[in-house]
């Protein structure tokens, strides 16, 4: 199964400089801190985490829209070229990004059809009539009618707009689509439709997807593997059913117990996190989560835990789990 992955990222770091007032020194914020992951061909990786944990930054880094401050990303075995390069531009046919706000992502001056044809025009794919045919096919593929192509973005509903954005992203048959909160701006009934559409599309086209969301249910529905992020690092990674049913990392446990379950009433076993939400400008020493962790050990404040295998294809970054794992080994 582990053939060469489509996308492999090693030790990604992305810092932002934040100015707080004219005379104060700028503060460096580490949005992403030595993050490593890989995505296989045709695989969907879900990335979850609370807002501000660096999910979107990770998405932009992986899509090649922003350069990492350190670390490497390779796509199809080759390093990602720098933005603006001719090679980078050609790579845009293979990696596409879908953003959260579909109305903002569309140019309100151009019709939907013109915008879906745009990637084909940019990369000079096909003749004019071929492009027109392709646009019609794409519109039907994403569940719109061919005559929607003549409409302007403001004449469509939110769900239709997101479908149009997807059609544009699919125009060049990319190998990887990075979806950054693609359904968060839609209401729940439309969310389900778009998610189903995405699931169908990835099935038909065998493309890989990175699906970024704060909504665990949505991610579970579509992902082959999920990664939980906290303050710019992956704290747990693995099969969605395993991670979501039996989370190992205390943060994943808290995150998953916070998902409301209809009809369950007030649950006793909910882990309510103490302390403030994380501030990436003042990252704690050691494990970033230790100030809020209900089970923190003294070592957690000293040493950042590594992402290590915890069996069944899962990886967890937590001293507790490591200790428990070693304990298990000793008893065996």
């Amino acid at each position, binding site marked *: 199964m582990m053939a060469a992955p489509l996308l492999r990222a090693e030790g990604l770091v992305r810092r932002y400089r934040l100015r707080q007032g004219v005379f104060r020194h700028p503060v460096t914020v580490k949005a992403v801190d030595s993050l490593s992951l890989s995505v296989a061909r045709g695989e969907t990786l879900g990335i979850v985490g609370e807002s501000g944990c660096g999910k979107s930054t990770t998405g932009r880094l992986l899509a090649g829209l922003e350069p990492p401050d350190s670390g490497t990303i390779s796509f199809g075995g080759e390093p990602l070229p720098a933005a603006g390069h001719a090679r980078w531009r050609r790579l845009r*046919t293979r990696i596409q990004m879908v953003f959260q706000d579909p109305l903002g992502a569309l140019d309100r001056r151009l019709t939907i059809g013109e915008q879906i044809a745009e990637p084909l025009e940019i990369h000079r794919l096909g003749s004019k009539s071929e492009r027109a045919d392709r646009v019609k096919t794409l519109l039907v593929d994403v569940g719109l009618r061919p005559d929607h192509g003549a409409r302007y973005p403001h004449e469509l509903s939110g769900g239709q707009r997101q479908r149009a954005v997807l059609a544009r992203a699919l125009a060049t048959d990319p190998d990887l689509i990075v979806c950054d909160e693609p359904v968060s701006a839609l209401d729940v009934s439309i969310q389900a439709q778009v998610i189903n559409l995405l699931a169908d599309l990835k099935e038909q086209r065998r493309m890989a997807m990175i699906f970024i969301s704060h909504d665990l249910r949505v991610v579970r529905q579509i992902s082959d593997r999920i990664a939980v992020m906290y303050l710019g690092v992956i704290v747990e990674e693995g099969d969605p059913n395993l991670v979501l049913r039996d989370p190992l990392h205390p943060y994943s446990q808290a995150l998953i117990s916070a998902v409301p379950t209809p009809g369950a009433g007030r649950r006793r076993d909910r882990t309510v996190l103490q302390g403030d939400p994380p501030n990436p400008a003042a990252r704690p020493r050691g494990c970033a989560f230790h100030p809020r962790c209900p089970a923190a050990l003294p070592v957690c404040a000293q040493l950042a835990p590594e992402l290590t295998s915890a069996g069944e294809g899962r990886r967890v970054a937590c001293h507790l789990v490591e200790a428990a794992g070693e304990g298990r080994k000793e008893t065996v």
Partner: protein
Amino acid sequence: MDGFVAKSLPAPTARKLWQRDRAVQLALVWLTVVLAVVVFADRLAPYDYAALDLRHRLAAPVGFGGDVAHLLGSDELGRDVLSRLIVSIRMSLLIAFGATLIGASLGTMLGFLAAHFRGWVEQVILACVDFQASMPFLILALAVLAFFGNSLVLFVALLGLHGWERYARVTRALAMSAGAQGYVMAVHQLGAGPWRLYLRHVLPNIASTLIVTMTLAFPDIILLESGLSFLGLGVQPPLTSLGNMVGYGRDYLTRAPWILVLPSLVISLTTLSISLVGDWLRDRIDKTLS
């Protein structure tokens, strides 16, 4: 979901629309007349604009005691005011049109450059903008005309420099805020180059603001041209322009007001019409506003 189409806002009342449209219609009619005059100036003018008729100096227009030979009267040298007016309209409008286009293209281009490259390019362009904005344009114009002499091409280019800084500022600000919007990011990540990005996407999205700026600048340039010609620095006799006519007609304001009143009227009506049409055009171009 399929049948859903975003509803537009309730339409303004029919009467309001009619009233506003009538003003625009009148403005359009006037501008059409003016444009026709510009195109057919040579055929419309009954006399050569510089031909003297010393026997009919300061003749009054028809209806004010003048005869049919000079429909709108004549000036102190017996030159036909109608012919001079027709040629002046052409001259002034061509100058204003050329200068507005030069200013708008230059300013928009520099604004895009500043927004695209940021860094020192932006700083240099902004410094030029501030320099241009803080320098009284008349002084600049006087200096240039004094050093390089006066030619029509130079004069148009000089007037084109007037107001470029406004386009540059507006374009830079709008392009930067457009850059923060999703569609620019989205098109960029499709692999589009800067030409496509700025000309196909950003420019149409900010065009309504630029057109309003142009319709504000156009009357400004007509007035500036008139002012400079009035001071004797603009269009030089024997050539004639609207401002030039007003300037030289000033001496005869009490005895022969028609020399001055008619070109002034044309200036006012044309600038007003352009403002009205520009406003209407902005609403028309913005498909999302209709």
